[in-house]
């Protein structure tokens, strides 16, 4: 028998729900035995508050403990909502980059992927990117979410997807073990594959990580090919310094639109670079509110920093498919005023923290 689903959780793909209505509906959904995830139903027993009664606003999301470390070991079945029992409703299981230890796992439901793609498409249209462009991704494959999204995206926008294999954990391992030259060789190996594609195929969109893009920029041949063919470069997966971004925009790829995407597997998506930024503006990212939202806090006190100040980024994901609240990320950013109607903060000039849980943070290639 089909379960009755709160329409707030099932709003049309081209709309977004009211933020507080979403949060309250999601609490009822994830913490009711019939529809909730086994993980949260069990976890609720050790919470010192009542999620359904107490979590009603954005600020209330901070009541949750940061549970992401538990995602390193939880069986994936326990993260799938009881309300979505059919395996056909599961899009896939994705893993974090493994920057901060053993990988964390999240499940991505088909419903969420559809919502994300609709948001993604709205952004691309707003950027003036024509449909039907071919796409090349130089982002992690395997268990990572980064290459799954473009695969769906070309299906909805038309065009052909070209991919390469990338294992970011190998690069981190090389760096941690003091073998940076092996990491360099691997990047060159990836770029050689890019060269074959850029030389022979019509590539309109390139998704790539900043370390690879910087390395690509060393090659006159590849820079010429990108400038000749590519309409938009989407960078993601590692931070990009403000000076590097400025040089790429103004000197290396002056004719190509360069757009950042600040994604995190732990929120099943992320934030796109704000529209209409000039070459001299900070790189501001606005999340897919209200499903994905950010706070920028002082990690010592947990309080929000002032707008314009740097703090550590906390991320929340609230949807029918998953509840991933109050995750202290390994990044710092400048807190920026949100767009009208947006939940939480926008962020700018994202950088990794130097160490996390006492371990140095190695960004590597992604």
């Amino acid at each position: 028998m089909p379960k009755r689903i709160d329409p707030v959780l099932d709003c049309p793909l081209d709309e977004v729900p009211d933020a507080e209505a979403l949060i309250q509906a999601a609490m009822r959904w994830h913490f009711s035995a019939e529809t909730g995830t086994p993980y949260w139903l069990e976890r609720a027993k050790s919470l010192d508050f009542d999620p359904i009664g107490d979590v009603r606003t954005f600020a209330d999301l901070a009541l949750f403990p940061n549970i992401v470390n538990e995602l390193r070991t939880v069986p994936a079945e326990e993260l799938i909502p009881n309300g979505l029992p059919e395996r056909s409703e599961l899009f896939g299981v994705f893993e974090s980059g493994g920057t901060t230890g053993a990988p964390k796992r999240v499940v991505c439901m088909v419903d969420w992927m559809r919502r994300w793609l609709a948001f993604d498409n709205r952004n691309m249209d707003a950027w003036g990117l024509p449909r039907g462009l071919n796409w090349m991704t130089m982002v992690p494959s395997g268990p990572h979410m980064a290459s799954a999204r473009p695969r769906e995206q070309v299906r909805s926008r038309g065009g052909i997807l070209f991919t390469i294999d990338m294992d970011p954990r190998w690069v981190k391992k090389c760096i941690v073990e003091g073998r940076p030259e092996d990491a360099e060789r691997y990047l060159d190996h990836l770029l050689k594959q890019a060269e074959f594609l850029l030389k022979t195929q019509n590539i309109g969109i390139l998704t790539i990580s900043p370390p690879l893009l910087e390395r690509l920029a060393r090659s006159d041949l590849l820079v010429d090919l990108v400038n000749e063919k590519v309409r938009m470069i989407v960078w993601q997966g590692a931070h990009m310094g403000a000076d590097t971004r400025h040089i790429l925009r103004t000197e290396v790829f002056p004719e190509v639109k360069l757009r950042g995407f600040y994604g995190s597997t732990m929120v099943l998506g992320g934030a796109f670079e704000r529209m209409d930024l000039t070459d001299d503006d900070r790189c501001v990212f606005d999340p897919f509110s209200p499903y994905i939202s950010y706070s920028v806090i002082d990690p010592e006190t947990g309080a929000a920093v002032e707008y314009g100040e740097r703090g550590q980024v906390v991320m929340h994901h609230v949807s029918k498919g998953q509840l991933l609240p109050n995750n202290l990320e390994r990044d710092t950013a400048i807190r920026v005023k949100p767009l009208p109607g947006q939940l939480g903060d926008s962020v700018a000039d994202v950088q990794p923290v130097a160490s996390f849980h006492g371990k140095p943070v190695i960004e590597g290639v992604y």
Partner: protein
Amino acid sequence: MTGPIQLDALGHNGAYRSRDRLTVSDVTGTPVAELSLVPRLFVDRAMAALRRADGVPADRRVAAVTQAGRTFADAMIDGLSVSDYQYAVSRVCGLPISVVRGTTEAIRDAAAHAYGNARSARPVGAVDHWADPSTRTGTALWTRRGDVFAVHASGNHPGVHALWLEALALGYRVAVRPSRRDPFTPHRLITALRAAGFGDDQVVLLPTAHSVAGDIIGGADLAIVYGDDAVVNKYAGNSTVRAQGPGRSKILLTGQTWRSHLDTVISSIASRAGTACVNTTAVFVEGDPTPVAQAIAEELSAIPSLRPEDDEAMLPVKPLATARAMEEFLLGRAEGTKAWLGGDGVVDDLGDGSAVIRPAVFQVDDAAAPQVGVEMGFPCVWVAPWSRAEGIRPLRNTLVLTAMTDDERLIDELVNEPTIGNVYVGDHPTWWFRPGVPHDGYLGEFLMRTKAIIRD
């Protein structure tokens, strides 16, 4: 002047003021300048531009380097007069202003003689140009080993920037990564070189984070790197990187005539505020070292503690915390030795967050004591006994050795010892230098090679 001095990166497309800037503070912690730090992408592109750049004819290079030396030492550059520049270096590095002034003149001089000094290294069998008439019957040609030369500077002394002018004069394109303590000198010098006619793609200033520094060396054909023993060990055996580490310069006093050489000894220890690699680190005394140590201590104790910008200042000044750390390190190493000066500490707090580091004199009872290799960035000397029976073993690993002796067999041994850089016999302080003599071998030995040439 309003606001801190802006020290832009000097890239292949001109000056670049980055968003990522490092505050450069003086010895009291007061901000003096903001240094633009460039990212890896900027470094990579600048190094590629140096490689692509066209060469400049030798006569124009030589004239421009000479002119730049004059501009450096005389002119207003980026709003800074030469005395503004000297004041900034003195306050930030904590170097006595007289040392900075002396170095300004040394850089002017080095620029005027850069090509001549470089050519001192040319083998007698080689000519400079293939068009030389002697190439028709076959000869050797002196040519560069590469096109791009990188410099990782140190901040202990602005004089390090006198040397790489030779590379520029020989036709290398040059990239300089400044130290964080003295970005002023290379910024001023490269600005002067550009004003004198060098293109932006001929010589660049690339201030950058430590993690990117390797890209500057990686992007060059040859590099010179200044640093400590760890840096020297890192590049040992690397034929394209010349590492310049501690000098561990020494003085040997034989016979009983030490009192007449005392001025040379004191000057060798304390000149340039004791910060240079040519300052004496250890004095070896044939016979009883006690009266020598005592006399050195007496002389050095008379040097006043003054702020670095004082005309009479002779000692280095550091942020108080840095000074305390150096003192702690020294006193730890000095355990088991006899202190003649500085045994209770060397820090003289100036009360403004900075401190003078005062001289130290310790006596060890064995020429092979490990302390004699401990080089500090201020006047600090280890006095050791020496006998002919010990020979030159304790005198090894030395940039400059001044020997007060007339024993020709001993002089032969010192000259033939591969780990001794320069040998000065008699009353010549270890810092003695004249254009045309090598500092640590000729740089030209490293930058150039010969090839055979014959033509119709």
